[in-house]
C-alpha cells in the first residue's frame, strides 16, 4: 500500500484520515486529488489526520504546503492532526511546523475551526 485516504465528516469539518506513505508518485498524487476534490465541493474546513502516516518525503511535504495554500486562498482552513515524530521533525527542520495549525487531539482540533 502506498497511501490510503478516508474521508469523514465531523460537523462542518471534513476529516481526512491518511495512512501509509506520502511520496512522489501515487501517494502525493492521491493527496493532491483529494484536496482538489474537497475544494471543488466547497469544503473549507479540512483536518488532515496524519497519525497513520509512516513516511513522507519532500514531495509529500510539498503537497501539504500546496493544500494549505490552496485552501487558505479559497478562504478556508487546513489543519493537521496527530503528527508522528518523524513528520513533526521534518516540519520543524523545514520551518513549516509554525506555518500549520497542528493538533494532537481530534476533538480539540475540531473545536479550533472558526
Amino acid at each position, binding site marked *: 500500500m502506498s497511501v490510503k485516504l478516508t474521508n469523514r465528516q465531523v460537523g462542518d469539518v471534513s476529516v481526512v484520515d491518511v495512512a501509509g506513505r506520502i*511520496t*512522489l*508518485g501515487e501517494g502525493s498524487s492521491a493527496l493532491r486529488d483529494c484536496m482538489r476534490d474537497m475544494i471543488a465541493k466547497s469544503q473549507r474546513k479540512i483536518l488532515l489526520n496524519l497519525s497513520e502516516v509512516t*513516511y513522507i*518525503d*519532500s*514531495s509529500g*511535504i*510539498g*503537497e501539504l*504546503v*500546496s493544500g*494549505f*495554500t490552496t485552501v487558505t486562498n479559497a478562504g478556508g482552513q487546513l489543519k493537521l492532526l496527530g503528527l508522528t515524530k*518523524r513528520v513533526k521533525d*521534518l516540519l520543524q*527542520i*523545514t*520551518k*513549516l511546523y509554525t*506555518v500549520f495549525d497542528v493538533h494532537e487531539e481530534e476533538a480539540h482540533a475540531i473545536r479550533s475551526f472558526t
Partner: protein
Amino acid sequence: MGENTGGGTRTVHEILDSSLDSVDHAEQVAMDLAQESGFEEEDLHKIGMSVRECMVNAVVHGNRYNAQKKVDFSISLANGRYTIRIADQGDGFELSDLPDPLAEENLLRHSGRGIFLVRAFMDDFQVRRISPSGTEVILVKNVVAPA
C-alpha cells in the same frame, strides 16, 4: 549487481532505469545494506530518505524519465564511511542556483526541500557535474562504532 562483503568492505553497483520503481529499489537497497552494516533505526530512515530524494532528482529532474538515460547507483562501505554515489545523464545543475527553502519568501513553495533535507541528514554531501553530461552526487554517513 555486484556485492562484496569480504574483508569488512561492502560494495553494490547497479545501472537503473529512469523510473520511480528505481527510486523505490535504490532506497530499499541502501536501507538493507545500511541495516546489515549496523546503522540504527533513525539513521536508516535518514539514509533511505536521502537516497530517495537524490534518486528522484536524478530520475525526474536529471534524466526526465527518459528511457534512454540511466542512473548509475553504487554504495560502498569502507573505513567507517557508508558512501552512496548517484549519477544521472541529465543537463546538470548548480547547487548555488537552488533557493533557500528556509527563507521567508520560499517557505510556502511547493518544491525545493529535497537537497536541504539530504544535507541535514547526511554527514557529507557533494555534487559535481560529470562528462559528457550529468550530475554526480556523493552521500556519506559515518558508521558510529558501538560504545
